[in-house]
C-alpha cells in the first residue's frame, strides 16, 4: 500500500477520532459528576441534530440562529432529564440508573424518527464538499472542520473543570456527602453536568449530521464514544482526546489495511476490541483514576 494513502487515512482518521471524542467528553462529564455512564449519549446527539434541523427546516430559522437555539433547547432537555428521571433514582442501585439511560436511548431512537419522519435529513452548516488537496493528500473538509471544533470544545471543557463551577463539580464527583457538608449544591451541579453533556452531544450531532445527514444512525455514535471513554479513562477529559485520536486512527487504518485482507468489516470490530482489551488489561483506562475501595 502506498505511503500517501496511509498518510491520508491517518490524517482523516485523526479528525474523525476528534469528532467521536466530543461525544465521549459528554459521557465523561456526567460520569465525573454523578458516577453514571449515560448510555443515552448517542441518542442525545441524534436528538440535538433533529432539534437543530427542525428549527432550521421546519420553523425556517437561519442556521446561525438554529444552532444556538438548538443548544439552548438541548441544555434544557439535559436539565429536565436529570430533574424528572435521574433525580428520582437517587438511592437506587447504579445498575437501575444505567438501565434508565438505556430506556431513554431506546425511547428517543423510536420516538424522534416517528415525529420528524425516518428519512435522512439534510443539515447544511455551510461546510463545502469540494475536495481539498494538500499535495497528493485529500483532506476531508467536513471532518477537518468538525475535528478542529471538537478539539476546541474538549479543550474548553478541560479549562471549565479548572473554573469555580468546574471545581465544584469535581468536588461533587470526589465525594457527594463531603460536598453537601461544605455547602455545595450537589443536585444543581449534577443537573448542570447533564445540561452541558446534552449540549456537547448536540454539537457532536450537528457536526456528524452535517457530514452524514440526520437520522437514527447518529445514535450509533454511542459505541465509539464508549470505546473512547473507556480507553481514555471514564473520568478523564484529556484522556478522551488521546483515546479519540487513537481510535479514529486505528479504525481508519484498519479499513485501509485490514479490510482488503479479510474482505471488510474491520472498522467496527476495532472499537469493540479496544473496549474488551482495555477492560481486561487496564480497567481504569489510560488516564482514569484507579478506585481503591477499603473494606
Amino acid at each position, binding site marked *: 500500500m*502506498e505511503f*500517501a*494513502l496511509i498518510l*491520508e*487515512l491517518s490524517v*482523516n*482518521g485523526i479528525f*474523525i477520532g476528534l469528532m467521536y471524542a466530543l461525544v465521549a467528553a459528554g459521557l465523561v462529564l456526567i460520569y465525573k459528576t454523578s458516577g453514571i455512564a449515560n448510555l443515552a449519549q448517542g441518542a442525545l446527539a441524534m436528538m440535538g441534530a433533529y432539534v437543530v434541523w427542525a428549527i432550521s427546516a421546519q420553523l425556517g430559522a437561519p442556521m446561525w440562529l438554529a444552532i444556538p437555539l438548538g443548544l439552548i433547547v438541548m441544555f434544557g432537555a439535559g436539565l429536565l432529564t436529570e430533574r424528572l428521571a435521574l433525580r428520582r433514582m437517587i438511592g437506587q442501585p447504579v445498575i437501575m440508573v444505567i438501565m434508565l439511560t438505556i430506556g431513554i436511548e431506546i425511547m428517543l431512537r*423510536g420516538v424522534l*424518527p*416517528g415525529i420528524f*419522519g*425516518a*428519512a*435522512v*435529513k*439534510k443539515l*447544511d452548516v455551510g461546510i463545502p*464538499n*469540494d*475536495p481539498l*488537496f494538500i499535495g497528493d493528500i*485529500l483532506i*476531508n*473538509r*467536513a*471532518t477537518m472542520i468538525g475535528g478542529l471544533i471538537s478539539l476546541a470544545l474538549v479543550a474548553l471543557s478541560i479549562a471549565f473543570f479548572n473554573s469555580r463551577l468546574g471545581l465544584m463539580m469535581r468536588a461533587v464527583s470526589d465525594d457527594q456527602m463531603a460536598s453537601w457538608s461544605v455547602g455545595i449544591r450537589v443536585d444543581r451541579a449534577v443537573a448542570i453536568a447533564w445540561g452541558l453533556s446534552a449540549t456537547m452531544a448536540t454539537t457532536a450531532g450537528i457536526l*456528524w449530521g452535517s*457530514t*452524514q*445527514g440526520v*437520522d437514527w*444512525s*447518529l445514535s*450509533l455514535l454511542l459505541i465509539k464514544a464508549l470505546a473512547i471513554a473507556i480507553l481514555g479513562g471514564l473520568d478523564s477529559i484529556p484522556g478522551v482526546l488521546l483515546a479519540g485520536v487513537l481510535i479514529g486512527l486505528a*479504525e*481508519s*487504518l484498519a*479499513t*485501509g489495511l485490514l*479490510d482488503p485482507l479479510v*474482505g*471488510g*468489516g474491520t*472498522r*467496527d470490530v476495532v472499537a469493540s476490541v479496544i473496549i474488551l482489551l482495555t477492560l481486561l488489561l487496564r480497567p481504569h483506562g489510560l488516564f482514569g483514576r484507579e478506585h481503591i475501595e477499603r473494606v
Partner: protein
Amino acid sequence: MSVTRRTLLSQAAVIALATQFRIDPAAAQEKVIRFAMPQDFTKIYTFVTAEYSQGQKDYIALVNARGGINGYRILAEVSDQGNDLPRAIEQYERAKSQGAILVDPLGTPAARALTPRALADKINLITAYSGRSDAADGTVFPYIFPLSPNYWTQIALLIDYFRTQSGGDLKGKKICFVHIDTPFGKEPLPILKRLQEKLGFELSTFPYTPPGNDQSAIWPQVRRARPDWVVFWGAGVGQTVALTEAIRNGLPLSKVSSSVWLSESDMDVVGRQQAAGVLKVEPCASGREPRLIQQILKEVVEPGKGSGAAEKVGTAYYNYGVMITSIMVEGVRQAFAKAPNGPISGEWLNAGLSSITNFEAEGLIPPTTVTPQDHQGGGKARIARWDGTKFVPATDWFTAYQDVVWDEIRTTAAEFQKSGK
C-alpha cells in the same frame, strides 16, 4: 367479571344460532379482493416505505374510484412489521386468515422469511426490489413475484451501460464496487465476477460497515484506484454518505452510479446541484409526466383523497409503488379474463399474474411480460441521470446479459429446490 348461568346460556344460544349461517368471506366483504402490505415503516426500510406505500394506496384509490375491477374493490391492508420477522409472520398469518390473496412486504428479511409459507399457502408474495433474486424462476417459486429487475439484472444493466459508453469494450477498464457489507450488498458480486470474466474489466470491491454512516476511509481508496466507473450499492443513509464522499473525493459523478435505491430525497440530503450527473437504474419513469401519475393527481390527489403529502406524488419511490401495484392490479384483470367467475383465491390470481403480457402502465413502466417461468417480468429498465433537479433517462428501456443472470437464477433456484434454503 362474574358469569351467571343466564349470560352463559344466552351467549351459547347466540353462538349456536350464528353457526347455523355459513359466512362466505367474499360475500361478507361485498366483492372485495384483499391484498396485504405488512411493510417496514419504522426500522430499516424507512427511507422508501412511506413514499412507496403512498403510491400504492393512491393507485388503489384510483382503481376503486373507477369502480374497481369487474365490480370488485381492491382492499389493501397496510401494517407496520418494523423489519421484525415474528411481526411480519404474524401479520402475514392474519392477512391469510382474512382472505388475502397477495402479500407485499417490501423488505428482504421479511420476504425471505415468508417465502416458504407463501409457497405452501399458495398466496402470491410480491418481492419487488427485495427478497431472493432467484425468485425470478417461476418454475421453482410459483407464488413469489419480484415483478421488477432483480439486483443481478440491475448490475448487468449498469455494466452494459458502461460498455456502450466506453466504445463497446470494457477490456482493461477499472470498475470499483462500493457496497454495504450485508447479503444485500454482496448480492451483485457473482454477476460482476461472471461479467468480469466475460468482458475483461478489472474489478475492485470495497465493503463498508452497515449502516454506512462513516465511509471516510473507503472513498480515498476508491479515488486512488483511479476507476473508470464506480458503482455504490446500499440503502438509506449509506447511499447519501457514499454519494457525498464521492463528491468530497472529487470523483466525476458522470462515472458514478447506483441501483434503484437512489431518490430525490437522497439528492436533497447530498445537495441537488452537487449531485448532478450521478447515474441510477430506473425501473419506471420518475416525475409527474407519466399519464398514470397525471390521472392519480386529477382523480385522487386534487379531490383531496390522496393518502399523503401531495409534493411526494411523482418521486422515484412513489412511482415504484404505483408501478408495482399497477402490475398487481393488471394481474387481477388477467385473472378475471381467464376465469371471470373465480373463485377468487391465490391460485386464481396466480394465473392472472403469470399471464401479464407487454403491460406498460400507460407508459410508466417498460413493457413487462410475466410468464409461469419468468417472474421478473423481462428484466427491462433504463439508466437515468440526475440533472440537478430530476432524473432524466440516459437510455431507452433495455435489458442486458440475461443469459448470465438466468444461469445464476437457475443455479441458485435449483439449490433452493434441493435444500429449501
